[in-house]
């Protein structure tokens, strides 16, 4: 089964590039523009992994992550931040919110799929090859 990625990213250009890059890497991709829409979408179809931008309108990444982790139904879905926020305090905030990883923008469009698989492998939740 092709693993499903649910992504929240408010920049439409980045959303498009990420969608194509992840499709190329063998994932199915659903993308929304902020954390609130992500919490809705996660109820529609349960993803294998969630990618979160940090700064978004309406609900930012850390809050969405915290809410996902607080809900027993979504708590075990791995969350990875994909963000330009790379300062020590921010990486720690992300980890404290329960994130499984932190990918830095600008991400490598040809490697991002492998990076996500690598994080999932480490969690013991291999996403498999397409």
């Amino acid at each position, binding site marked *: 089964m092709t693993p499903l990625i649910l992504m929240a990213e408010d*920049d439409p250009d980045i959303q498009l590039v990420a969608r194509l*890059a992840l499709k190329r890497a063998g994932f199915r991709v659903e993308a929304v523009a902020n954390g609130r829409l992500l919490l809705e979408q996660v109820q529609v179809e349960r993803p294998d992994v969630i990618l979160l931008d940090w700064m978004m309108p309406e609900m930012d990444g850390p809050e969405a992550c915290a809410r996902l982790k607080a809900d027993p139904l979504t708590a075990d879905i791995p969350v990875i931040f994909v963000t330009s926020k790379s300062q020590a305090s921010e990486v720690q905030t992300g980890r404290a919110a329960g994130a499984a990883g932190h990918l830095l923008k600008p991400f490598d469009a040809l490697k991002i799929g492998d990076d996500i698989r690598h994080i999932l492998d480490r969690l013991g939740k291999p996403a498999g090859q397409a």
Partner: protein
Amino acid sequence: MPNPILDRRVPADEFARLQALEGYHILATPAEPAFDDLAALAARITGTPIALVTLVGGDRVWFKARVGLDEADTSRPMFFCARAILARDLLVVADAARDEQFSGHELVAGEAHIRFYAGVPLVSPAGHGLGTLCVLDRVPRSLTSEQQSALTTLARQAMHLLELRRLQVQCQEQEQQLVTILDALPSPVILVDAPEAHIVFQNRAAREALGWDTNDPDELTLFWRAMQVLTADGDVVPPERWPARRALRGESLALESLVFVVPNGRRFPVLSGAAPIIDDAGSVVGAVVGFQNVTHGPEMNRLKDDFIALVSHELRTPLTSMRGSLQLLMADEHAVPNPEFRQLVDVALDNTNRLVRMVNDTLDVAQIEAGRMPVHVRRTALADVLTLVINTVQAQAGAHRVLVEAEVSPDLPPVTIDVDRIVQAISNVVAGAIKSASAGTTVRIDTASSGASVSIHVRYLGASIPEADLPRVFDKFHQIGRSGDQGTGLGLTIAKALVEQHGGRISVMSQPVEGTTFTIELPADRQGA
């Protein structure tokens, strides 16, 4: 008495003459002893009761100096001096009452009863008749030729005096201008004179910085006698080594870090520079000392770091979609089949990658300097670190036709480090070496351990670094040589910062023949080794 002829003739240069006279700033000014003395001397020599130094204005003739006359000025038409500057020569009027050119003037027809006049025009260096030195009497008379000649000489002296006075006024104006400029400067500036370095002037910023609001020379001398200057390390700098004294010995000083301790005990760090003031003859006549209180430096640095972080972050968003788009285009051979267009996309991708590197490096420097770089340390063997380094630089080495070889001594103790960061630091150094190494040579990485530290040496042969540049090699944006390579000028800065963050040190030695060696020292982890 009637005025048969009112002589209103003026010199041909009247307009320029009046302007020149204005430039002397002397009309309607109080008496000055130097001019009074000349007038008194003129009266004594000619034996007349009245002598004047006059200035011929537009309507009035002003008496700058006067002996034996109460009036301070008089009307210009029909007055002797107005005629004397027309003639540009000694004018003698033996009996004004009998000369209808002058008989109607108020000093002749009125109570003053002037009858005799002899005046020599005061001609400026530019050739304008400004006024006269003249002698007058209430009875008709004449002057001997010696007296006339003496009067002419005295007139020349009066003109010299006027000229000196003008230059003095000009100097005062310039000085005032200089003071205004210096006081408007935000940076403290101090002027001292030779040879004793007495303070001549401190601008407003200097008075404020030092907390001593005076320009009184005696007070300043006392103040500076009680001042102390320390090096950045806190050693006392003897007064003969202070910037002012060194500048008075002819030295021009670049900015150096010092600490000023003012007499009330307050101390603050400064950057101070100085330069000698040299006169036309080449002698040092004084010195200018500038300094900047750098107490607030850290605050400025923090603002700068925040700014860099913000800009770098904002740049990353568009870079993410640019680079991703180009990567995906290039990854699919069918997306851009035309080879020339593929080349163009490749150029765009290369340059986007370069921009990404610059943004990353800039942000790294800002974060390291601000102490906000994430660090995750673990105990590691250097051999593993160097393997990662070699992997990182391999492609670049190939492109430069340079080999990279690493040799790790077997007895090396482990190190406790953030592996990613130390790999980044060593890779930056090796990448710099690859760029500077001659094609076909080998960049060698070897290790050594001594006591509490392990060292990693990166050696290469290529253009050596000039000795003068060695201290600047790790400075931001300093590029070794001009390789034209697409470096960011931050690689070694980042390497140094990362190594120092780990409690280590980085240094460089360079010789034309032996080549260049970068040495990174890291604290060894002896626990259980």
